[in-house]
């Protein structure tokens, strides 16, 4: 039987078959502290230190029995389960991390869409000619805000007789971290005195946090247009005054 604390502790730890190095170190520290406490008590009782230490080690009992008893405290199945649980936790955390950057980045675009959509990078690269700022907001069925922030008018590049009106719309959520920002349905446009919808094209941005739309229609000279929206019970018409004075002069 070992008489030195170090040899005793090594014999005990050698019996811990499924303990990790960290767990063995913790056991070693705890047992060493126990031996030190006992040694101190014996020294205070009048033993000399080497004798006291040997006595303290002997009082711990057979290291093989101690090791076998402690080994039962480290069952392999809980080690495997704890490792699997850690893998699961890390996998879930990593998977969920993919959802965080989008809303954080999108929040900036969202706030800009509310305060100054015409200053957005999307609009700056798609400014229509003779741009006139507007300020119209309507809440849609899904809580998103439909904001018409401006329109532009200019002659068609391919055709001198027709004109292209571009209506600039941004859709954003009152909650800046909400992911989905798309229009449930696109608006239609009619010319004054005509109920048939105008043929239209549109461009959209790919920003998260707010979605920009440029709707283009081709009215004839002097015609005014009206925007119509009808979807899931939200219905509104918005007459739009085009800057014909600037274009035709």
């Amino acid at each position: 039987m070992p008489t030195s604390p170090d040899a005793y502790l090594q014999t005990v730890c050698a019996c811990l078959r499924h303990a990790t190095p960290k767990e063995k170190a913790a056991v070693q520290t705890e047992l060493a502290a126990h031996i030190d406490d006992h040694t101190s008590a014996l020294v205070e009782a009048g033993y000399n230190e080497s004798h006291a230490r040997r006595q303290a080690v002997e009082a711990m009992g057979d290291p093989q029995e101690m090791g076998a008893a402690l080994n039962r405290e480290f069952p392999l199945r809980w080690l495997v389960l704890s490792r699997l649980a850690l893998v699961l936790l890390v996998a879930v955390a990593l998977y969920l991390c993919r959802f965080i950057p989008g809303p954080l980045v999108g929040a900036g675009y969202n706030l800009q869409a509310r305060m100054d959509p015409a200053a957005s990078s999307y609009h700056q690269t798609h400014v229509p000619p003779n741009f006139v700022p507007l300020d119209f907001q309507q809440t849609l069925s899904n809580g998103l805000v439909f904001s018409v922030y401006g329109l532009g008018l200019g002659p068609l590049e391919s055709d001198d007789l027709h004109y292209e009106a571009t209506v600039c719309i941004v859709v954003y959520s009152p909650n800046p971290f909400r992911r989905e920002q798309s229009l449930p349905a696109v608006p239609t446009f009619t010319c004054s005195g005509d109920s048939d919808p105008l043929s239209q094209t549109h461009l959209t941005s790919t920003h998260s946090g707010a979605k920009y739309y440029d709707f283009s229609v081709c009215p004839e000279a002097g015609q005014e247009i009206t925007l119509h929206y009808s979807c899931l019970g939200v219905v509104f018409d918005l007459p739009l005054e085009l800057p014909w004075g600037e274009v035709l002069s």
Partner: protein
Amino acid sequence: MKGPKRPWTRRQRARRWTAAALLLLAAAVALHWIHLTPGQAMATAEKTLGTGETTVFFQKKVGNVNLYFSENDNVLLVTPFRLSLRYDWWNNGQPLAWADRSRDPGGICAVGLTFVSRDTGQELYQIFGLVPLEGAASIQAPDPRTTWPDFSPQVMTAPITTLPDGRQAFWAQYRPEEGVDFVRPAQLLVLDEAGQVIATYDMSQNWGGDYLNF
């Protein structure tokens, strides 16, 4: 005096880490980041469109995806649900297709679905609709290029059948052969027994689609 902090036992570690992982998952479900059941996917689809609560009345499996058809007075909604990492199961919760019924809650309504095979690129067109119309026997949904000269466009057709809840509905399907050009229908024609058109329905805005295997 406070003693040294005891390290967690294995059992504590396993339980606490599992609990932490489950808490994260629960938070993700509560935030509608992921959807583990069809009900959750539908709730998110309803929120995305702002339709209000809908009730499932029909279910169909196409390829590896379950399609849930639900409705209320505002909308006929199709929500896909699949638990497959390969097919972006985190996209559950996006409405696949829907039809606005707010102007005519009891009228005809139909949704069109376009699926493209991820493996072969083949297309599959499907139309589902409700036809609460006396005397309706079948539907036709033509390729919109019917007015083109020297061009005979494909027409999707289907008989009108009765759903378990007693309502009249149809399910039309068309899988173009390789090289066949097809444009998804914009108008639905409802025919009676004699083949006469008794109603039309504009479904140009009611299409949705996805990539999957079928």
